[in-house]
């Protein structure tokens, strides 16, 4: 399918569907992602939320959204989306509501739910071909509980429950989801809003699960300066750590490939969660292994030789 592509950041919609003044941390990369996503989704949306940092965006009696919101629990936002979608379909079918009153159903969750507790209900929703959007803001740990290891935490990262650095690699959620062959699946980054916007434009044409994972810098968890969020998100892509790609019915394609890959070290050394790899002595072995893991990934696609 061919859709009209957005070429530059100037073409992004001007309207904001999320207002400022949220209680999220300064410099939260997830918030930046969500802002762009909601620009693309518009205001006729119901967000079904799983427990995570963004649960605290809507605190009674305030909400920063133009659209509707339903907080479920940690394990089951996709099931909540199922209920809302099915109910809307029933009401539409019966003529009880006008098509204008219809809503896009969007699941919003952090990596803790997406990679761990909510994985089974997500798998169920994908398998049932539920017509919904799923956005995971992935800061690679349980963020709002103070940064503990999740299934998404990468190799060697320090968290409050992996103080010597994590032993094994992060789960490949993209591939787990891709094995279900959803109509549309993509990784996104707040540092590449044009890529992000085009992916939402493309996804819009498909009925069924439309899934998005965004790697997002998290200043308090990553121990980074809030003003470096954008730069770090960009470095993740430019070093090849975060591959921007999409998959249509199981066929994977990369949408942004760095012309020349920057060394992974450039990305790691900026972050407190990896500082043990540099101080008090450089841990060459681990640094080498991380670079090797990234190289391996790109070699699999014949992009790095």
């Amino acid at each position, binding site marked *: 399918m061919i859709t009209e592509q957005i070429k530059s950041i100037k073409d992004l919609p001007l309207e904001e569907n999320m207002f400022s003044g949220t209680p999220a941390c300064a410099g939260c990369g997830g918030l930046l992602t969500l802002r762009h996503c909601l620009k693309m989704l518009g205001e006729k949306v119901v967000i079904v939320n799983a427990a995570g940092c963004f649960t605290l965006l*809507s605190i009674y009696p305030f909400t920063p959204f133009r659209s509707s*919101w*339903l907080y479920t629990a940690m394990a089951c936002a996709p*099931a909540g989306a199922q*209920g809302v979608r099915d109910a809307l379909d029933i009401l539409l079918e019966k003529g009880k*509501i006008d098509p204008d*009153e219809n*809503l896009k159903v969007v699941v919003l969750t952090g990596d803790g739910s997406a990679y761990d507790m909510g994985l089974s*209900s997500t798998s169920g929703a994908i398998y049932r071909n539920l017509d919904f959007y799923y956005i995971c803001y992935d800061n690679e740990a349980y963020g709002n509980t103070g940064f503990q290891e999740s299934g998404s935490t990468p190799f060697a990262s320090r968290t409050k429950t992996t103080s010597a650095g994590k032993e094994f690699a992060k789960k490949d959620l993209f591939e787990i989801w891709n094995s279900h062959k959803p109509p549309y699946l993509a990784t996104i980054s707040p540092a590449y809003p044009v890529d992000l916007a085009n992916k939402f434009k493309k996804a819009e044409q498909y009925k069924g699960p439309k899934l998005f994972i965004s790697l997002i810098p998290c200043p308090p968890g990553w121990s980074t300066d809030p003003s470096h969020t954008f730069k770090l998100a960009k470095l993740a892509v430019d070093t090849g750590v975060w591959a921007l790609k999409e998959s249509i019915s199981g066929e994977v394609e990369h949408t942004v490939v760095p012309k020349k890959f920057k060394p992974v070290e450039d990305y790691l050394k900026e972050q407190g969660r990896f500082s043990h790899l540099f101080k008090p002595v450089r841990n060459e072995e681990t640094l080498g292994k991380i670079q090797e893991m990234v190289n391996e990934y790109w070699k699999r696609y014949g992009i790095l030789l």
Partner: protein
Amino acid sequence: MKKEMLTGNTAAAWGARLAEVDYIPAFPITPQTEIIETLSDWISEGDMRTRFVTLDSEHSMITAAGAASATGVRVFTATSSQGLMYGFEMLYTVAGWRVPLVMINVARGLSSPITLGPDHNDILAARDTGFLQIHCENCQEVLDSVLMAYRVAEDEKVLLPALVNLDGFYLSFTREPVEVPDIDSVRRFLPSYEPSHAFFRADQPMAQGVAVLGGAYYSYFKYQMHLASQQALGVYKEACREFEKEFGRKYDTIEQYRLDDAEYVLVMINSFSTLGKAAVNRAREQGIKAGLLRPRLLRPFPEEDIRNALKGKKRVAVVDQNISVGKGGILFSELASCLYNEKHRPLLMSFIGGLGGKNISHEEFAFIFDQLIKGEEAEVETPHLLYTQHEWEEMQKLKEIAGRV
């Protein structure tokens, strides 16, 4: 109105069919599967215009049920035992959303050890969640209670979800003649669900289930749920009156069996109370002034009706088909707290029987009445587990076979 031979399970399915529910999210578990299988068949044969979706777990099922209800359709689902436990977190959550879905629980003992027989630890664990609870003794009551549950849950003064409970095996698979009311009278009693309180629409953005930071706000919302549940008592009584007018069958928050002049009272719920009624009859034949009280509504708890029903009674035995480990019978505690402030309250004794579907025999009921008559002189521990000599010997045999005596 026609009569059909229905199991407890199919009576529950008929309840959902007659309530013309819009949506059924489902997940199988014994012994409730017959309910969702029956509904699924009816839907595929075109007898019901209902959307049926199988979910990936009870946790997801209850979530989908609550979310659909919050979007404004009438929702039905069913579970049992471990399934209810697996979805437990969401019982609190959807009750807090104030959505009037109706869920059947087919009572079954809880693991471990894993078993199939019924007791009430599953359903009674849910008594604090905010769900209303109706407990049924027979198949007719199951069908009728589903209709009543919607009527009460959907009332604007209530807006809480409801659980209708029936015993696994003893009722789920017992076939009885059941009057299946015609759809027009059901529609008169239970009009279609037209919510006005909260739903998701494009022109009316709404945040539902949002966080509250601070105990004062949290307390406010929780207490609102309590008040709504209290309101449900009146709404339920009203529903009973209208139900009787429409269908001729009389229900109340409690059932009183030969209670008027009774001095010795059994308190029991669910299908085992049929055994209790037979025991009352036998005791009466022996000249014992026996009676039985069966709470039908457990949440909200009909305290006043229970107090009135037990006024002037000498001694009361609560026969709990559950065990709160480390405490005893749950219903006993409920009764005790209900009667504590009464000036002239009866002596209360606690018995535990029927766990995991264990039969309660004639002799055991006779033993209970014996203890009631002895009263203060009785020398049984409390709570007292009903267990026959024969059962004890059987158990010893099994232990020998298992090899660890």
